[in-house]
């Protein structure tokens, strides 16, 4: 390493003294091209002057580029030499000396960043990179001090705090995106280390993000996204540690940010998610229903309608279903009923799906927003419940559990379905054939599930009913697809039918002692059925295309 230092120094000296003529002659050689450029003298006059003093014409750019390059190489050699020297003797260097060394390098790098950004022209990228490097060196300085004084690993949150805060001025005042991103990531790490080490909610993190990070992010979407994701992941963490007010603070803050910047939809979606986790935390901590969530949900739904945001509306629907489950769970605990996976719970969700579907039809008939979303959400929810209730094991396991709250809930929803259907029918809302068929399918599910609810312990009968409803779903979609010449509806029907066959096959053969039979028969079935169905589907699709 000594030789590196030596040669670095030699190169530096050589370059500085390379072919050095008298100062005044050198000045003349450098100034002449500028006079010619400014047309103070002509090129011929310049040649005459140089010849008079017996000087050669030099290309200043080439000379200075060469000088710069060699200086740079010399500086790199010198720097590497110092690094190697320090590295080899690092352990022998006293701790405080190491700290001073590293701090000096840090401040120098910061100054270099300033120099290349604001003073020297033509090196903006270098300047930005040096600011980031200085921020990283600052982190190394803090970590080194932590190491010297044995700050334990359990207090790493403290190290990250000391790293992230002091680099914020670099990010903000020098408008350095890289440092801003680094600070955002460091703050997230600080937050989670604090939460896990101190086992206490960290209210400072969201306050810092709202007050400083997001407000200074300006047009930088990576900074905004990272900080928003940091907040959302913190809210996801809250239910596990019962930090209900932290989740509420995050949700409320994000909502306020959205109200101030309606173009930034990410704030609304993340506020929705954070508030969902708030309600989960609230209910699990206090064991009481969170009625405070209802006005919040109304506000979120209102914003979805106002700004026509279907993604947010979907989140609102999911939030509603979740809130309903949490509320019923709380009431079950209060009334000392068993809250477990039961037939009435599945039927309740199925009926809820039908209600959503009818709301979708009503919305469509009145030209309101999100009718497709309501219909699809309702249809899928009911289908999922239909599928679950086709399993004999599910019916067996869930049959014996009776929760009067769910039974009453099912009756209320059943009543609501009948009333809504009656009302919409009188308004002439079911004229469309597609809607009639879909509704018919759902009503078949409704009828089947009410029968299951009446006698939950009749497992064999209920299995038959459940599977019949599933087959009706499949056949209705296939028929509808053919009737209305809609390939996606037809494909959906085929997919449901295949799912039914495969599920029942697995149900029956998996219990066989000889597992190989399961795979052999399954393989043959899939090949045969698959090729038959694919042929039929292609024929149908071709027929539709020809007719069009």
């Amino acid at each position, binding site marked *: 390493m000594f030789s590196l230092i030596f040669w670095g120094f030699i190169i530096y000296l050589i370059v500085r003294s390379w072919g050095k003529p008298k100062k005044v002659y050198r000045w003349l050689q450098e100034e002449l091209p500028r006079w010619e450029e400014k047309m103070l003298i002509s090129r011929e006059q310049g040649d005459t002057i140089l010849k008079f003093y017996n000087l050669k014409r030099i290309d200043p750019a080439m000379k200075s580029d060469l000088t710069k390059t060699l200086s740079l190489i010399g500086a790199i050699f010198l720097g590497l030499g110092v690094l190697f020297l320090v590295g080899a003797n690092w*352990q022998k260097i006293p701790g*405080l000396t190491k*700290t001073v060394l590293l*701090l000096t390098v*840090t*401040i120098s790098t*910061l*100054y270099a960043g*300033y120099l290349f950004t*604001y003073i020297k022209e033509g090196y903006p990228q270098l300047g930005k990179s040096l600011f980031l490097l200085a921020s990283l060196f*600052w982190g190394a*300085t*803090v970590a080194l*001090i932590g*190491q*010297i*004084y*044995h*700050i*334990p*690993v*359990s*207090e790493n949150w403290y190290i990250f705090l*000391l790293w992230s805060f*002091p680099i914020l*001025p*670099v990010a903000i*005042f*020098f408008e350095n995106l890289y440092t801003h991103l680094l600070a955002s990531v460091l703050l997230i790490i600080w937050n989670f280390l604090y939460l896990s080490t*101190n*086992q*206490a909610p960290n209210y400072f993190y969201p306050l810092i993000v709202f007050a400083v990070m997001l407000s200074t992010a300006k047009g930088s979407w990576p900074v905004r996204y990272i900080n928003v994701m940091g907040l959302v992941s913190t809210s996801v963490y809250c239910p596990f540690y019962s930090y209900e007010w932290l989740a509420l603070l995050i949700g409320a803050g994000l909502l306020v940010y959205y109200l101030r910047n309606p173009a930034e939809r990410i704030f609304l979606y993340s506020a929705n998610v954070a508030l969902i986790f708030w309600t989960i935390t609230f209910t699990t901590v206090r064991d009481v229903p969170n009625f405070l969530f209802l006005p919040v949900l109304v506000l979120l739904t209102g914003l979805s309608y106002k700004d026509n945001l279907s993604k947010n509306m979907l989140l609102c629907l999911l939030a509603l279903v979740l809130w309903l489950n949490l509320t019923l769970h709380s009431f079950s605990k209060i009334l000392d009923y068993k809250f477990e996976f039961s037939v009435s719970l599945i039927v309740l969700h199925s009926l809820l799906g039908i209600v959503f579907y009818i709301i979708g039809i009503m919305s469509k008939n009145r030209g309101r927003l999100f009718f497709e979303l309501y219909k699809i959400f309702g249809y899928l929810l009911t289908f999922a419940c239909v599928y679950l209730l086709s399993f004999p094991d599910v019916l067996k396991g869930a049959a014996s559990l009776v929760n009067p709250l769910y039974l009453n809930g099912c009756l209320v929803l059943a009543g609501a379905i009948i009333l809504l259907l009656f009302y919409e029918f009188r308004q002439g809302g079911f004229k469309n054939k597609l809607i009639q068929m879909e509704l018919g399918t759902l009503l078949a599910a409704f009828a089947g599930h009410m029968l299951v609810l009446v006698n939950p312990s009749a497992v064999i009968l209920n299995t038959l009913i459940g599977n019949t409803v599933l087959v009706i779903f499949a056949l209705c979609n296939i028929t509808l697809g053919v009737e209305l010449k809609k390939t996606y509806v037809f494909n959906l029907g085929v997919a449901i039918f295949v799912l039914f066959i495969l599920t029942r096959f697995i149900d029956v053969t998996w219990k066989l002692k000889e597992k190989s039979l399961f795979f052999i028969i399954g393989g043959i079935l899939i090949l045969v059925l698959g090729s038959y169905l694919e042929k039929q589907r292609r024929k149908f699709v071709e027929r539709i295309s020809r007719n069009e």
Partner: protein
Amino acid sequence: MNKKVVLLLISLLWITLAVGLVKSKEFLLKNGKSVLLETLPADPRDLLRGDYVILNYKINTLDLNLVRSEKSSYNPGEKVFVRLEPRGRYWGAVAVQTKQDFQKQGDPAVYIKGRVKYYSHFKENSKMTVDYGIGSYFVPEGEGKEIERNIGRTKSAVDVEVVVGDSGLAVIKDVVVNRRSIK
């Protein structure tokens, strides 16, 4: 704001923070009271992570039947002050409380600040684990193996000299292996 002024202010901030952190630790080392703590054997496979050693002390686990306690139960994350008194070669825990006592002149005890990590109560026994912020010791690469071997070997092979300040904050001053300082 003028960029040069910003540069100067940031540089000043970084230097102040670094110097402040060093000064605070140096002040503690200079003015705090030195206590020798006994370490407990730990699974050597888990000891060395990277280039620091995890230290587990006898005073990390407090049996509330054996030490005087202000409360009957504690919550994880709660700040506590543990009174240490000399017990032969080492200092041991004699009492735990949530507020620091005003130290009387001539009182040989020290109060070390910690945070409750775990608390358990089973039948008549109440125990809690407290973290004092002195659980890691950074070593030059390769030198941790000796410490690792010695902690696993016998109870008294590795002792740690810790300095405790008036506020209860503690910092490791030295690690003694087989009665020989590794510094």
